[in-house]
């Protein structure tokens, strides 16, 4: 039976009369990677701050490890905020030890773990260097180490991929996977759907402060109408041929006329192919289109809510 690590129950937060989060509820279960998705300004950071007790909800309840987000519970959480930085004048290992000690790790143990993680992240040689001498990528790795050094049960990452180059984005994905494999629970917010699609067991979509979807990635993709693209050389009118199987329309793509079929629920691509064969349609292209999370997001929240902030990596 799964254990709920974090539960937001009908939480709302308003700033100067402007609602930032409206009646949002979701849970994060132990051992899962949960993606918290939405465009910029959707209310993700405010929700995460309420989850950690940094902000108090105007309405609703937050339960972290089954209780209010008290300091004791925070020691079991590793949080990497969106606006992140570290003390530039301190030595790398001192920064890591400092943040570990804030989470209750003893100094000697914090140093030992910090050095081991620096080794693991390929930064062993800069352990005694000042943070200000590091490159941006190295400093970001030190921030991640500072978040994980106390071996938290629950890791919350707010827009962890923003500002990272593709190589470091991939490296961070590996870190997230590794933490999940080690049995840790991960919740990360992002407006980049591809990361969520690759990593998440579960996603929570939020737009304009409201939750739009809560479920698995497959379930989210299942919400998007499946689509088939066809090109033919015969004179058939596919709207007649495929009547009742979906919404059919014709559009010009380059020098070709293509038929687009948005499948009716219960109809799959094989049914379309069979109908075309039965009607002697001469096909030159038959392409079932695979939906992406971005499509699901646009479908679920509408183009207005998703754009222009929603991005793809």
């Amino acid at each position: 039976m799964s254990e709920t690590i974090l539960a937001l129950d009908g939480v709302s937060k308003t700033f100067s009369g402007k609602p930032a989060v409206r009646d949002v509820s979701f849970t994060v279960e132990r051992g899962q990677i949960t993606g918290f998705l939405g465009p910029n300004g959707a209310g993700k950071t405010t929700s995460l701050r309420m989850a950690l007790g940094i902000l108090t909800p105007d309405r609703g309840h937050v339960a972290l490890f089954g209780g209010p987000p008290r300091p004791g519970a925070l020691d079991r959480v590793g949080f990497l905020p969106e606006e992140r930085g570290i003390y530039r004048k301190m030595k790398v290992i001192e920064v890591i030890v400092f943040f570990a000690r804030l989470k209750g790790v003893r100094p000697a143990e914090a140093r030992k773990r910090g050095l081991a993680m620096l080794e693991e992240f390929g930064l062993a040689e800069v352990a005694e260097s000042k943070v200000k001498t590091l490159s941006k990528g190295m400093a970001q790795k030190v921030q991640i180490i500072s978040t994980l050094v106390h071996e938290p049960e629950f890791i919350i990452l707010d827009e962890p991929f923003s500002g990272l180059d593709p190589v470091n984005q991939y490296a961070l994905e590996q870190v997230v996977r590794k933490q999940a494999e080690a049995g840790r629970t991960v919740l990360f917010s992002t407006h980049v759907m591809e990361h969520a699609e690759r990593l998440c067991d579960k996603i929570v979509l939020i737009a304009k402060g409201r939750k739009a979807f809560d479920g698995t990635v497959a379930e989210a993709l299942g919400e998007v109408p499946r689509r088939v693209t066809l090109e033919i050389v015969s004179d058939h009118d596919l709207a007649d041929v495929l009547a009742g199987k979906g919404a059919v329309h014709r559009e010009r793509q380059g020098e070709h006329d293509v038929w687009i079929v948005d499948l009716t629920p219960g109809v799959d691509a094989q049914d379309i192919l069979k109908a075309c064969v039965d009607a002697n349609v001469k096909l030159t292209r038959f392409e079932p289109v695979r939906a992406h999370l971005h499509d699901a997001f646009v479908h679920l929240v509408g183009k207005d809510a998703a754009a222009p902030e929603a991005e793809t990596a």
Partner: protein
Amino acid sequence: MRNIYLIARREFLSYVATWGFWLSLLSVPFFMALGFGMPILIENSQPTRYYVLVDETGGRLEQAVYEQIDRSREDEAERVREAASEMLGNNPQVEAALDNSLQLEDDSYVRVDAGTTDLDELRPYLTGAAELETDEGPQPLFAAIYLSEPVPGRIEMAYWSTNLTDSRLRGDIRTALRDYMQLRYLVDNGVDPALIEAADDIAPVVRELNPERSADAAEVTQGERLPIFVGVGTAFGLWIVIFSVVNMLLTAMIEEKGNKVLEMMLASARHHEILVGKLLGVAAVSATLLLFWGALASIGGLAVQQVMAAADIPAADIMAALFDPALIFPAIGYFIVGYLMYGAVFLAIGSLCETIQDAQTLMSPMMLIMMMPLFLVMMAIDAPDSPIVAVASWVPLWTPFIMLVRLPQDIGMVDIVGTTLAMVATAVVVIWGAGVLFRMGALNQANQDTVKSWFQFGGKKKAAG
């Protein structure tokens, strides 16, 4: 408590590890020593001036000049003695030390015999073309002074020198001649010289009495004045420490905000823990500075006492006034409350700003508020019972400084209790308000424009993403 301790410890170590801290630590005693020592250094570094004095009256004016100069020195010594007595009390050993030091020969100007009194022959020495043989080796002639009395009663001095700025010798001789002329005028008009000398010594006997005490014990001792001076000194010291320390807090906070460290901190510690931890860390820095400076001052005081063996400066009285429970405990209390008030406000300002330029506009009113007690304390030196000072001590942000000056004056309990309660209540409100601002600033829900807007059309908070 763990987080407060760790944050305070980090703050403390981050300051102690900087060059700026060590510069602050050493620069204050260095510049104080420089301030005290510079005049002596300048005095001692001045080369000996050699001069020729030619008395064309056959020695009468020369004798009068030196007698008057000696008398002037004695008068000057007496004035210094009286001033010292006013400050330090009637202490025979202090007087002996002053007598000893004030009767020293002034060897800055040495009269020499150049072997000639003819101006044309002396001219090369005056212009530097030739040098005189002296005990220090060959030296230029600083001045040639010719005294004459061409007409009875009309004394003239011709002062030849290429140095246009050092006028002390000329001034001393001119003053001596004037005194001699005035004395001779009185004598020539029938006044007995003994009478003139006796008149010079006439001075009133002044007794300062305290009407709150009975006749026997009414006389005000010099030691009773010390607490007022110590109070003023402590108020200045408190102002300097608080002013320098809160500036440290401000710059560190802005740096932290700019580096976006606060968000990382909030993942581990609550706002109040960060606020209190920072205040305590910087308080520890200021305590370190105060302890170091205090120890250095004590060592310096002992050293001065050792060097001036004959001078029994009433160090015990000064220390007793400084560590009088009636002053030291309020001073500690005022420091803590004053530091917390100003420190919390400056931290809040820092949390609202990304750069020191952002902070400038918010700092200006605070600087004015902080400067006012400095002027009022200066005013209180001459008029500690001024109604303006009394009223200003009720302004809670100024209370810590001004009450330190008022406390040694036997003010009423209503003033002491009332100002203290108002100050503590204000401190609680200010710290609470600063905490709210700090929280908003740390989460980027407010910035310097938000505060400005409160004073215009009412504030609007910015929502987080």
